[in-house]
């Protein structure tokens, strides 16, 4: 009897370990993602006014995202690499189709209806652009020659401009950033980057002076200084800062945030959910959340450097750095460090056209890490 139990005890961990290995799961990555998503549901319950329906819809999205993650983890990187140009091409065609429909519909158009499924090609491009750049740069030795660099910049700029015209400037900038990160990891000359940043100053000045209408300048000013618009963006930031500050070190406790429950805080389930969280769980809670994000980013960068070929290395690095940008832009905005940009807090904010995309990214990271082979040395 006891011998039998002992045998089972010894067998059990190996079985699980074997399953995890067979299923191409990277445990640290999966656990962190699940912890973040779980924490997100807890906050959302409070932010959404304890609406079980809201929670249920978010859980369904999470489940769909997890399925996406697990499916992509099974796809070996060489296949991804093979499909990359086609995925990029299809994404570009869909973007053009959406733009065409948008022109006909006389307004912003981001969605493409494929039967019952509505589909946002710009979401697909969030993954397709870094894949394409990584694929293109991996063909030749790094760092890329000037000609290749220029071609790569075009491959980033064209979809980014198309998306900016939808108009969805936030997504366009994120996609441009993801492409830029590939270039950066591929050894884009630091001098060139500094020169580019310096060149942006007179270009920005020229755009401001000659290229903008008065109303556009006012928009930019309001964007940079939300207090200019005390009824709009400024109101969001003031209320969000009160929420964070009044939370203190230990927070007001779950479901006890006055800023959110008295409805002073706008967009509390979506873009400003971090303020709800930090009001109720305080600085300690905020640090815990940031620690989870840092863990995820560190794991991503570890996977990057363990990757066995240039394509997977560049792709993994870009996906991880872009994820960091999401986290930082959102938390920076909520705490008044950055201007108000409509970027959700990844894995936590309600709604999630981007949830599935994020999960797809993590799936690719897992695939890259779990399909490694021992190298003949």
């Amino acid at each position, binding site marked *: 009897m006891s011998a039998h139990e002992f045998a089972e005890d010894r067998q059990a961990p190996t079985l699980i370990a074997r399953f995890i290995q067979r299923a191409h799961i990277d445990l640290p990555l999966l656990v962190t993602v699940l912890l973040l998503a779980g924490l997100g549901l807890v906050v959302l319950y409070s932010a959404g006014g304890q609406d079980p329906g809201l929670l249920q819809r978010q859980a369904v999205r999470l489940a769909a995202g997890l399925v996406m993650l697990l499916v992509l983890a099974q796809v070996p990187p060489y296949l991804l690499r093979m499909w990359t140009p086609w995925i990029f091409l299809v994404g570009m065609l869909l973007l053009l189709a959406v733009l065409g429909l948008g022109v006909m519909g006389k307004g912003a158009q981001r969605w493409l209806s494929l039967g019952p499924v509505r589909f946002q090609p710009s979401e697909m491009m969030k993954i397709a652009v870094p894949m394409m750049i990584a694929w293109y740069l991996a063909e030749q030795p790094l760092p890329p020659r000037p000609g290749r660099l220029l071609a790569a910049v075009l491959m980033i700029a064209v979809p980014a401009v198309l998306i900016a015209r939808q108009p969805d400037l936030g997504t366009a900038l994120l996609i441009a950033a993801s492409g830029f990160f590939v270039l950066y990891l*591929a050894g884009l000359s630091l001098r060139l980057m500094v020169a580019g940043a310096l060149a942006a100053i007179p270009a920005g000045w020229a755009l401001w002076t000659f290229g903008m209408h008065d109303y556009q300048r006012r928009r930019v000013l309001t964007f940079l200084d939300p207090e200019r618009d005390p*009824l709009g963006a400024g109101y969001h930031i003031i209320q969000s800062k009160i929420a964070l500050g009044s939370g203190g070190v230990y927070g007001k406790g779950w479901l006890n945030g006055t*800023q959110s429950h008295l409805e002073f805080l706008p967009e509390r389930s979506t873009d400003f959910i971090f303020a709800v969280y930090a009001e109720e769980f305080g600085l300690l809670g905020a640090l815990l959340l940031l620690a989870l994000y*840092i863990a995820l980013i560190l794991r991503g960068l570890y996977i990057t450097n363990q990757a066995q070929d240039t394509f997977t290395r560049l792709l993994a690095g870009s996906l991880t*750095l872009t994820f960091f940008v999401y986290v*930082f832009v959102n938390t920076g905005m909520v*705490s008044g460090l950055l201007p108000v940009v409509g970027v959700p807090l990844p894995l936590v904010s309600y709604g999630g056209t981007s949830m599935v995309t994020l999960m797809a990214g993590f799936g690719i990271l897992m695939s890259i890490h779990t399909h490694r082979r021992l190298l003949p040395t």
Partner: protein
Amino acid sequence: MPSHITIKDYIQESQLTLNRTVLALAVIGLLFAALVGRLTWLQVVSHAHYRDLAQDNRVKIEPLVPTRGLILDRHGRRLAVNLPAFSLELTPELVDDMDTTLAALGQLVEITEADLERFEGLRARQPKFERIPLRFRLSEDELARLAINRHRYPGVDVQARLDRHYPYGAAFAHALGYVGRINVQELQTLDPVAYRGSTHVGKLGVEKAYEAQLHGVVGLQEVEVNAQGRELRVLEREAPAPGQDLRTALDVDVQMAAIAALDGRRGAVVAIDVKDGGVLALVSEPAHDPNLFVHGISKKDYATLTASKARPLFNRALVGRYPPGSTVKPFVGLAGLANGVIGPDQRKYCPGFYQLEGREHKYRDWKKQGHGPVDLHDAIVQSCDVYYYDLAHHLGIDRLHDYLAGFGFGRRSGIDVGGESNGLLPSSAWKRAARNQPWYPGETLIAGIGQGFMQTTPLQLAVATAQLARGGLALTPRLVLEPEPPAPERPPASVPIDAKHLELTFGAMTDVVHGLRGTARRIASDAYRIAGKTGTAQVFTVAQEEEYEEEEVAAHLRDHGLFIGFAPADDPRIAVAVVVENGGSGSRSAAPVARAVMDRYLVGSQW
């Protein structure tokens, strides 16, 4: 491919990425440190401050919409005012179930698709806890139905707002324009701060051109609310600054006199103060009621307006393009004198037609038997075409073009409301560029009597007449007197005119009205002297005039009647241009309208 190169690359490249990762990590670390610093500042250092703020946080900020400036005539009579009206507004955050509520409200009051669309547009843009208008201008019945049922729908309010109203209705529609509800396109371009809470914006005419002055500056009020968001009391108020009132140059009496004199005929009247360029009357008939547009015109009303053959939405005074006909003759005469092509007393013989050398084609005078020997004075008074055929032939199209351009023909007058047409002043260069054809001498002849390619707006005719009355001194017309309109971008240049030439032209134009053989002698007045010129523009030669329907073919073929003039002839104060579409001869149709307008302005009584 030798494999050792690949391996070397691999090591180098993985080292490169590692270096870059370390650098990125350093930046990420710095940024996270900044974030943690910020959180510490807010949550630890400033905690007490924000805790107090949160405790006192019962304050909501609301916009206070400024009152739109009035539009007055020159004597202070109100042309555009604001009247109280009731609108149905919703605060989405307080509404339990938006779809059900909207459906229920649809049972109580009429809500159109357009109302819903605008409501959704505003909802996406407005900050939380702000009322968003769903329906404007509720009727008494609708107000009563809402008053009984409103308690059943939280977040639904009836608000009193001020609405734009035009007391004179259609009379000033084309002079003032109108305001309308802010649409989705305008949301993109309007300053979201300045227009917070505003529902209307100038769409056309004075209302649009002076939007910045009329709108005013939005105010704020801080309101204490309870936990459900209901308002308890006003804590602080930053009053809105009302928009500036505009005093226009328009004169209600003169405008009404012009409309009455047109007597339902299609046409346009523009009267200008010769001294300062102020527009005394700007009439385009028929016109539409601008009050229909303030709250979005109904599809049916709009269809009626657009389907009407008389085209009430078309601003004839600013955009209508008419051949000037014989009204151009005083200007062409001056062109001939200035270029030395004719002498002041030089006579030409008019046999009733004109032929170019070696050509068969006869260019007819309007008087079949001819005017006999005529000098410039006679040619203006009797409107002799043959004299002008010969004058234009010797002058040539390009010299004619250059001189007439000095009086503002062929370009925008720069009136302070914009939206005007260029008209068309032809030249050989224009024809080559626009039609890729050479200029034919015959075309110069008919240009000399204001026919052919040349097209003018009634406003251009009035401005040119006023400039003539000022002895060639250029002017820019303006609808608004106060506040001072912006200076025109391209101030027009004056035309120097020899005093003798001017005296001759003024004398001839006075004899048009007061002479025994003048074409407009029927409108001669004892009270003051008028200098004028009649014109009759042939319509059927102009291919562009296709908008008239087939049923009206007979009327469509009738000529446009024109008249330009200024008065008093010895000390001009008012210049008038009149076009009566398909009115037949200018002396019968248009001249009496001008007389009525001048009488009203100079004498104060009607003819």
